[in-house]
């Protein structure tokens, strides 16, 4: 045996190389063909895949219920070209009778918040998506990884693709995080420790008694940024919290895989959650982390609270708790982006949107928008933004001389109020 959770899911889906009594385990480095439970694309990557699709010589997608198409990046359409890309995806979805196509306003949202919310991923699934943050669904105990558009097209045509079995870094989480410390601080701390290529080609396998102290939303945030450490995927064990999340969202029955006790890890790192403090990643790498209390007076121009990393309802609640009855500092634009239509509605019902608006935030419809420098909050030269997003590369949110500081919703909200980077 000796397999990690990721290796077990790959083994369960392998088609070209069935595990046999004489070779019962997959080895790191081995190439396998594997069945796909879901293939995802968005309005940036799917149009390229749709153009490639006919070249594979198949008229129809392998299974119209196992393809998800989500217009979320440059939507609501930011310009004519973006509109044309969305139109291409819409036309394809209609022609192929894709079941999981989500129209703007009709329950749509940011793909990696949306798919779990709609119950489209369950524990034990194997998912590829033409978006690097597809690794988010590892929070549900699934193997999910980002690919490019050609791989997406091949996946849509064939329903299977090849994988190199990854070796693993085990991340043992201990203890319980303090108030105002969340999943974002955990993953920024980890990336700061191991670097942006610290888990390159590997799976990040989370374990330890600290997992139970993390909400599902925290786990989504952590798995989401596995790619920022270079990882192929990040994955959490399935526990009661996972199972009740899957039940509540109407997901298919889970297939639970646990790592073998003698699974082999290339590296083991341990994090005491109780020791963590609010953390911020300075430009221009997610690994450039500092404790917020050490940063001094870093004045800011903008705050973005949202994205596939931190646009879920608990993120909205934390930001609202910090902002309630207070005002965004003069000179700061605060943009709040609930990640899906359902989260937007829930935030409305709970009175959170009113808190944001009264504090002086603008509340955006669901969109990836500013995270990748698309629209809805682009930065000018020299401007600084504290964002709950996932990347702070040169020019990521706008001008090449702008700066993005990555932090949790608590730190972003507190910074919006203070006008500089700070904790609640």
């Amino acid at each position, binding site marked *: 045996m000796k397999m990690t959770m990721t290796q077990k899911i790959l083994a369960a889906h392998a088609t070209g190389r069935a595990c046999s009594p004489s070779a019962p385990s997959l080895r790191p480095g081995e190439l396998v063909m594997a069945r796909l439970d879901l293939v995802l694309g968005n309005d940036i990557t799917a149009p390229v895949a749709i153009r490639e699709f006919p070249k594979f010589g*198949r008229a129809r997608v392998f299974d119209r219920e196992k393809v998800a198409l989500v217009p979320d990046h440059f939507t609501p359409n930011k310009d004519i070209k973006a509109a044309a890309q969305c139109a291409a995806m819409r036309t394809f979805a209609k022609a192929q009778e894709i079941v999981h196509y989500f129209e703007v306003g009709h329950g749509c949202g940011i793909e990696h918040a949306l798919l779990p919310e709609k119950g489209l991923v369950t524990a034990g699934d194997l998912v590829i998506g033409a978006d690097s943050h597809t690794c988010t669904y590892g929070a549900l105990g699934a193997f999910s990884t980002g*690919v*490019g558009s*050609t791989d997406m097209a091949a996946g849509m045509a064939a329903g299977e693709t090849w994988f190199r079995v990854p070796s693993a870094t085990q991340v043992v989480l201990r203890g319980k995080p303090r108030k105002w410390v969340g999943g974002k601080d955990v993953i920024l701390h980890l990336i700061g420790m191991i670097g942006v290529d610290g888990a390159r080609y590997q799976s990040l396998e989370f374990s330890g008694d600290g997992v139970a102290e993390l909400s599902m939303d925290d786990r989504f945030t952590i798995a989401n940024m596995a790619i920022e450490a270079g990882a192929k995927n990040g994955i959490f064990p399935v526990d009661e919290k996972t199972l009740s999340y899957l039940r509540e969202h109407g997901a298919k029955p889970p297939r639970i895989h646990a790592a073998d006790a003698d699974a082999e890890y290339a590296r083991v790192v341990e994090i005491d959650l109780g020791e963590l403090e609010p953390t911020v990643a300075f430009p221009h790498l997610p690994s450039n982390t500092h404790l917020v209390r050490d940063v001094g007076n870093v004045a800011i121009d903008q705050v973005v609270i949202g994205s596939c990393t931190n646009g879920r309802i608990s993120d909205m609640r934390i930001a609202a708790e910090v902002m309630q009855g207070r005002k965004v500092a003069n000179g700061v634009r605060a943009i709040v982006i609930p990640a899906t239509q359902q989260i937007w509605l829930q935030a409305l019902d709970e009175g959170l949107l009113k808190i944001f608006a009264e504090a002086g935030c603008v509340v955006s419809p669901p969109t990836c928008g500013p995270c990748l*420098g698309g629209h809805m909050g682009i930065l000018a030269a020299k401007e600084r933004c504290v964002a709950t997003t996932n990347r702070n590369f*040169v020019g990521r949110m706008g001008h090449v001389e702008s700066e993005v500081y990555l932090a949790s919703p608590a730190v972003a909200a507190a910074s919006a109020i203070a006008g500089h980077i700070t904790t609640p």
Partner: protein
Amino acid sequence: MKAHKYGDNVDTDVIIPARHLSTSDPDELAEHCMEDIDPAFAARVRYGDILVAGRNFGCGSSREHAPIAIKACGISCVIAESFARIFYRNALNIGLPILECPAAAKAISAGDDVSVELAAGEIADLTTGQRFRAEPFPPFMMELIAAGGLSAYLKGKIK
């Protein structure tokens, strides 16, 4: 062929900034390739040139537009100390040759005349006379690159 050299962690946001992702036209993408870290690149690069970089080349977004832009610029091969995994897959899938070779990536300087023998994994810096060896691709991958990418390679092979 002339080498263009960059450092570690060249991400896909600087290879092709998202503001240009409202198109997937290769020639249009090529005009903006590397513009946020090297605005003169698209004008300077010549057909057949080599791109040389440090660790974790192509990290970040899964946008296939990144290798598409590099290929459409005329770059014939990317040599790096290491590649981010999604970029690695994407580059081969669209038929952009890439070689992982830390020694060559470190030794080659910007402007050096470099030749690459892909099938053998051989890299020569003709300016300094140094020769390097990368792990060559297996025959199927050479076929895939020659076909121009995964879709052309697989066409007819899918039942």
